[in-house]
């Protein structure tokens, strides 16, 4: 069976600065990021003939983008359900479109502003009601907001109970993210974090703490995907897509409305996706040089480390100790600082940082990085990529 392995490449990346209270529209961030990605690829906007986005992105439609960019024709426009789970999935869809001959140069993007993301959150979740309506009626009357936090808290508490995972262990994720962020001028949270400071944060949705949430700001990110053949003519060394895909596991949901009913609540959808990714790429977890894994909250990242097979289920808390996820460690993780420290963009910055690592341009460059695994959020479907240089 033919797959997309090595058939396509990411040839351009663009990321705006993370700005606080910029007063700008999400559309302007989307356009700025896309312009940067097209220039980075050595292309012009006239070359772009495909767009892929998240359904939860409120920045623009493909038509609005085309009206601003002046693209002569949209040959392919695709949308993936929801948000954080679909960062890598956008690249998967772009590859599928390119391989199928539907389009030549496909842009994937995500833009959000803090004001819009935060204030319109409940409204946007209401838009997803048709997906989750009946399940919502068994959550909201009990104070469950359909935010992510309750689901992560339930799963984290159960993980602590079953495996003895401690809050101090989990703190290693944001502490390490700050170390990477200190090297990254784009990052919002560049001050060092100690375990004592982390433990002193007030508890929000127990055991999740108040300042564990991502660094939310105003930002746009974009990339350009094309065929491996066309990639050779682009400006930078191509970053080839060895494997890409989406996965949900049983009882998926638009947000987390069915999470409580999944067979194992400490297990993410990546558990189902990971074997397919590794099979498609023909590599194993121990071959991966760098991992960029969605980290909206520290525990969610810990569970992804386990479910992508970097350690056994339940051993994540111990695995991330002793510098193992730092630069020079066994599995450098979120080398841009991730959502915990660089800034929040629904998993898309993880894709962009994976590309930087394989170009050799990360602010925390892993020496001779050849294989990067990128993983998106738990939300169903989740998605992932294995990239190579």
């Amino acid at each position, binding site marked *: 069976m033919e797959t997309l392995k090595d058939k396509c490449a990411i040839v351009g990346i663009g990321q705006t600065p993370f700005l606080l209270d910029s007063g700008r529209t999400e559309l302007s961030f989307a356009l700025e990021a896309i312009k940067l990605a097209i220039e980075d690829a050595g292309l012009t906007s006239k070359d772009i003939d495909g767009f892929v986005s998240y359904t939860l992105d409120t920045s623009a439609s493909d038509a609005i983008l085309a009206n601003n960019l002046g693209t002569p024709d949209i040959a392919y426009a695709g949308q993936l359900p929801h948000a954080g789970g679909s960062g890598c999935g956008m690249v998967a869809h772009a590859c599928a479109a390119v391989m199928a001959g539907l389009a030549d140069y496909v842009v994937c993007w995500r833009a959000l502003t803090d004001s819009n993301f*935060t*204030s319109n*959150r*409940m409204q946007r979740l209401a838009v997803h009601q048709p997906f989750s309506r*009946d*399940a919502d*009626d*068994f*959550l*909201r*009357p*009990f*104070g*469950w*907001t359909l*935010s992510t*936090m*309750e689901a992560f*808290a*339930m*799963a984290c*508490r*159960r993980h602590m*109970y079953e495996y003895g995972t401690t809050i101090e262990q989990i703190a290693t994720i944001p502490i390490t993210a700050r170390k990477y962020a200190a090297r990254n001028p784009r990052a919002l949270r560049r001050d060092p974090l100690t375990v004592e400071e982390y433990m002193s944060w*007030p*508890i*929000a*949705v*127990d*055991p*999740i703490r*108040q*300042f564990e*949430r991502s660094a939310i700001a105003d930002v746009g990110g974009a990339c350009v995907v094309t065929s491996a053949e066309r990639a050779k003519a682009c400006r930078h060394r191509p970053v080839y897509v060895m494997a890409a895909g989406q996965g949900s596991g*049983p*009882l998926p949901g638009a947000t987390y409305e069915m999470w*409580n*009913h999944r067979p194992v*609540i400490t297990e993410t959808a990546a558990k189902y996706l990971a074997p397919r990714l590794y099979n498609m790429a023909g590599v194993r977890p121990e071959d991966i040089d760098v991992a960029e894994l969605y980290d909206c909250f520290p525990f969610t990242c810990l569970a992804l480390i386990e479910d992508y097979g970097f350690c056994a289920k339940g051993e994540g808390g111990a695995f991330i100790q002793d510098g193992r996820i730092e630069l020079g460690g066994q599995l450098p993780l979120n080398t841009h600082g991730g959502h915990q420290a660089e800034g929040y963009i629904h998993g898309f910055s993880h894709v962009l940082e994976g590309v930087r690592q394989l170009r050799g341009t990360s602010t925390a460059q892993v020496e001779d990085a050849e294989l990067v695994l990128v993983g998106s959020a738990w939300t169903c479907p989740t998605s992932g990529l294995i990239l190579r240089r």
Partner: protein
Amino acid sequence: MEKTTNYEKPLPQIRPDTAPFWEGCKRHELLIQRCSDCGTFRHPPRPMCPECNSLNSEWVKVTKGTVYSYTVVHDRPMPVLYLPGFANDRPLAIVLVELPEAGNIRMVSNIVDCRSEDLKIGTPVEVVFDDVTEEITLPKFKPTA
């Protein structure tokens, strides 16, 4: 429990697929849906059995549970994340209860008559009913005496 007329918290909408659950609660019976063909329990209620795809179901009364996991909401990082009527319910214990009388499927609820600091995974609980409006009764749980 006292009925209130100005209840502000979100209420379930009673729809054909979920009505037997809420009608049961109104009678102070916790009814869990079971496939009448293969016997698999499911929750939340929905039209089709995910095991055998049967559209036939029946409702089984249960009373007991075990705390499978829980969270206590002390504060939320964004005010928009408070649902109407819940802003002052702090700390708010949300529990995930496993139902041994229904194939160990789970449901979300609140715990009553239990200090949040005493909440533990594995705590045996039993259902109690909170008549929050004339039409709606919510099933909640208290530690088994």
